């Protein structure tokens, strides 16, 4: 029975959890997961134990900076889900108390999720925070609480700004908001290090500010439809990337021209069915903000880590990172193949076999070659970069063929 907003919220939460689980279960590649994820977790577990018992030199050198960067990113990257739906305009939006209750519950639930994520981040960074920065366990927990409060408050503010502003004004305002958020977190960290007695008071002030901001936000009924649209987008954030266009929905974009290849520029000079399909896959991948962001993060993280890791780990990263990049590109390729637009055409298997490695290789080669240059420069100076470039090309192409030959 759905007689109260609370019951409606619980029902939506349960439905959403079921939806996300089904999507992950149907789309997650368990074979690759077992082969890549479990060894990665085992290696990370061992490394984590070493961080506590015998921290490596690089952790001593860069651990504090890395922890600051990661917690700042955690504080700045939150989103709020209000669990509103478009169909709510038929009934729920006509009863302000129901709308507010639903949104309040969604905001509270988002805050709890943010707190759990902040706790996880602090737990992972605990060796650095406790051993190097000298925080006590209670202070580390307080740092997690500050991160969670900022993540929630900044998410509310950022989404509000998105409703109010457009174009460069929105970008400028969000940049300022991020700077403010980073500053507030840095101030909290400094208080913990220098005046820990006041850190609790600081957290209380942030919590009060968050409550005030949330209260005002919940009064803004004029954004209800936009909030519902964003909820829908956030609900599909992971699943749309995982299962592509399996769910029929019209493309929605406020942007008229794409930022990349603005005049539908060609990637391959020679036209063939395989080149056409591969080109579409590469463009769709690079223009999708979610996949592009993930691609850049993985490319820069791998290249950056290549510079600081010890030599044996560099080689492992070179191979592992190349295959991870190829796996990510493969997800984009699969999304292109699953698109309903392609159902308009006959699609022989030979075309898929020819186009897949080409699309994946175009995406994989630039970051793998960059990693190869850094690896060669560090391991075999001064000419190693040149030496490892062809090897990187072979590795990138091999990873592309390997990843596209895995069934489903």
């Amino acid at each position, binding site marked *: 029975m759905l007689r109260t907003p609370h019951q409606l919220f619980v029902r939506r939460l349960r439905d959403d959890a079921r939806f996300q689980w089904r999507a992950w279960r149907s789309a997650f590649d368990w074979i690759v997961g077992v082969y890549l994820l479990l060894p990665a977790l085992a290696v990370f577990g061992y490394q984590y134990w070493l961080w506590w018992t015998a921290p490596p030199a690089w952790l001593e050198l860069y651990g504090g900076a890395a922890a600051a960067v990661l917690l700042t990113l955690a504080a700045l990257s939150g989103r709020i889900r209000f669990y509103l739906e478009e169909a709510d305009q038929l009934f729920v939006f006509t009863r302000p108390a129901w709308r507010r209750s639903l949104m309040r519950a969604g905001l509270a639930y988002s805050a709890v999720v943010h707190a759990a994520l902040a706790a996880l981040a602090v737990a992972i960074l605990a060796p650095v925070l406790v051993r190097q920065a000298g925080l006590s366990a209670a202070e580390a927990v307080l740092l997690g609480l500050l991160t969670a409060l900022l993540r929630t408050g900044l998410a509310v503010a950022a989404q509000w700004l998105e409703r109010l502003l457009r174009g460069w004004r929105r970008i400028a305002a969000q940049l300022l908001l991020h700077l403010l958020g980073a500053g507030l977190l840095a101030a909290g960290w400094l208080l913990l290090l220098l005046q820990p007695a006041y850190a609790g008071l600081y957290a209380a002030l942030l919590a009060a500010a968050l409550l005030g901001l949330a209260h005002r936000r919940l009064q803004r009924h004029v954004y209800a439809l936009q909030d519902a649209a964003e909820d829908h987008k956030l609900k599909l954030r992971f699943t749309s990337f995982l299962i592509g*266009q399996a769910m*029929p929905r*019209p*493309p*929605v*974009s*406020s*942007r*008229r*021209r*794409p930022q990349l290849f*603005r*005049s*539908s520029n*060609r990637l391959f000079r020679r*036209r*063939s*069915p395989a*080149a*056409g*399909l591969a*080109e*579409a896959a590469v*463009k*769709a991948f690079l*223009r*999708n903000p979610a996949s592009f962001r993930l691609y850049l993060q993985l490319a820069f993280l791998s290249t950056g880590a290549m510079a600081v890791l010890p030599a044996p780990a560099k080689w492992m990263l070179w191979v592992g990172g190349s295959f991870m990049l190829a796996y990510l590109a493969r997800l984009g390729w699969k999304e*292109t193949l699953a*698109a*309903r*637009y392609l*159902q*308009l*055409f*006959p*699609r022989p298997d030979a*075309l898929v076999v020819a186009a897949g490695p080409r699309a994946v290789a175009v995406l994989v080669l630039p970051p793998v070659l960059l990693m190869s240059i850094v690896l060669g420069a560090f391991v075999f100076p001064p000419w190693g970069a040149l030496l490892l470039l062809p090897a990187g090309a072979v590795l990138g192409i091999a990873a592309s063929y390997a990843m596209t030959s895995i069934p489903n």
Partner: protein
Amino acid sequence: MEKLQVELREAGYPDRSAVVSDVAFTVREGEWVGLIGPNGAGKSTTIKAILGLLGKREGTVVFSGPYSYIPEHPVLYEHLTLWEHLELAAAVWELEPEAFRADAERLLARFRLTEVRHHLPGSFSKGMQQKIMLLVAFLQKPDVYIVDEPFIGLDPRAVQDLIELLEEERQRGAGILMSTHVLDTAERLCDTFLLLDKGRLVAQGTMDELRLSSGLPGASLFDCFLKLT
């Protein structure tokens, strides 16, 4: 000459009872066939079964050559421009580049989309998105057009352009299978009709044959539809 021969004993979704049974018909050269029926009669399912898009299909479907399918709702890539959708179609169909460019420019102009060809379709109205589906279908010169509810979302001028283009293609010799609810337009355009109800063909033939089946001499397609379904 027969452009499409369909004999569906059963079709539907896997693990479910059949949605469509015992549907048999042909679309001949230069023939415009209307597939009509009430909501839920199985029109879209029949089309999807013909295209091989359903998990369960028993029977035979024979195309004499290439076909173009215009779906009821636009299906587009969110991150490809209008021109890139056309280029992808041309690449997969292996259209000759110069001919493709000339045809594409002509069709873009006809549907008044030339100015927005490098725009993402997500910024278009639903009607404009549907026009892209038409453009793609007309790019190749297929033997058969399979058109699912083509008039939904189109403005009157686009409807007129679509009818004219389909008429030109019919005169070229293409067969057309069109599912629609717009019965007065169907009566005006189609040579023969397939009347579907609850997944089965309840009548088929020319307008005169439908009148005979319904026992309503001189009746409109609308009246025959109401009588037979």
